[in-house]
């Protein structure tokens, strides 16, 4: 008997959290676990570049029982692990769902990489892309598959805006423009009402998913290079960043 044949009733909502290094993916997950653990049965899969640092952080935060936080080591290819070769993550999710059945939500944290990495719909049902104001106010305007088409864009650490000379309102507006009206959530763990909005979004997503009304959306492939002198070497097709 193989172990990956899932019955529908044990399959959880698989929610991916992506975004560049240091934007606060682990903190977002910690906040979700802390606020939702009494309503939902939750498991977490972390993806790390070096060893299992993120899993250790979450365990040390004590937001979930330790056995519900598992690390997948990605061999310095964090975007490969969520995009073109999802097997390790998929099995980690399936194992988690089997070992703690029934789970309501499995959160998958991508290894912090770059702006272009998004989850494959083969791995997650929905995904949150996390930016922060400290990364610069123009990041949201630049767009990209995660910023443009993730199910939710979180702009984190908004309390830091004034310290890093970023106009938070402008950044949120830029993001909303880049997303054609898809949801953007300004977040700060120091502002409980923003955390509650994040939780509400997850509650709503779970409700839609459980009712069979959510269809995973692929934010799209990795972003093509921007060529400032397109006329000098026109490519017939956009080429992608290969993994390093």
């Amino acid at each position, binding site marked *: 008997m*193989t172990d990956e044949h899932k019955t529908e009733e044990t399959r959880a909502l698989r929610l991916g959290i992506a975004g560049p290094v240091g934007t606060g993916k682990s903190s977002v997950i910690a906040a979700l676990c802390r606020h939702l653990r009494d309503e939902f049965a939750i498991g977490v899969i972390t993806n790390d570049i070096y060893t299992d640092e993120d899993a250790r952080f979450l365990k040390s935060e004590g937001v979930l029982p330790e056995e519900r936080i598992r690390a997948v080591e*990605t061999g*310095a290819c964090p975007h490969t692990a969520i995009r073109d070769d999802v097997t390790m993550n998929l099995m980690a999710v399936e194992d988690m769902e089997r070992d703690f059945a029934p789970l309501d939500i499995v959160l998958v944290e991508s290894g912090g990489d770059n702006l272009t990495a998004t989850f494959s719909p083969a791995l997650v049902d929905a995904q949150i892309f996390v930016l922060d104001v400290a990364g610069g106010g123009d990041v949201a305007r630049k767009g990209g598959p995660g910023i443009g088409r993730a199910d939710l864009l979180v702009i984190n650490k908004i309390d830091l805006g004034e310290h890093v000379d970023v106009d938070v309102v402008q950044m949120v507006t830029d993001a909303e423009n880049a997303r054609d009206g898809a949801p953007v959530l300004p977040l700060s763990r120091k502002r409980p009402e923003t955390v509650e909005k994040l939780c509400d979004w997850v509650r709503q997503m779970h409700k839609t998913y459980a009712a069979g009304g959510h269809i995973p959306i692929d934010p799209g492939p990795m972003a093509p290079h921007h060529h400032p002198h397109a006329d000098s070497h026109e490519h017939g097709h956009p080429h992608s960043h290969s993994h390093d």
Partner: protein
Amino acid sequence: MQVHEIGKQAALLLLADGRLPAGGYAHSGGLEPAITAGRVTDVAGLERFLIGRTETAGSLAASFAAAACAGSQGGDLSGLPMLEAELDARIPSPELRKVSRDLGRQLRRAMNSIHPHSHFAALGRAPHQPVVMGVAAAVLGLGPREAALAILHENTAGAAAAAAKLMRIDPFEVHAILARMTARLDRLAVKAAEFVNRPFADLPAPGSPLTDIAAEHHRRSDVRLFAS
């Protein structure tokens, strides 16, 4: 050349390709632990490492892949649990036994999605990677020799690919080593397939003491790039 003369070589390339989505990229085949221990520092050391790995762990995996393929070709999977036990006995490090079974589960998961077959479901919960490779080869219409070659290539090229991330090294030099090793891989694949009609107890048991020891250290290391 006529198509029938080259056999199923495209299927072999599919199976041996490092881009097959089975999670192999997260492993360095013992190279990272060897570098951490200071035993591989330059291109010459890398070449000695890769040859030693191929002659030991690679050949071991190859003969087991060939044996699993032969059994699977005949539709008789009843010997696979014993084959698994024989392979366990040839891997002293529990960490490396786990890595082999993790990679085996992943390969089975991937292959069963790519090319579903009842043989994949008949494998145990966490089958060893060479055993899955052998079954996958048979399912794709390949023979024991191809199964052996596929895993020899995976073993060697996987570790070599990690070298570029772990060492200050010219990637062309890494592939030059692989190019020099191609005849060796062919030879070892033929040798591995010679055991298919023999009792499993007679399968080769080449050991690699430092690989086992280093794997146990690696698992306990706080900072590592690769899972093994």
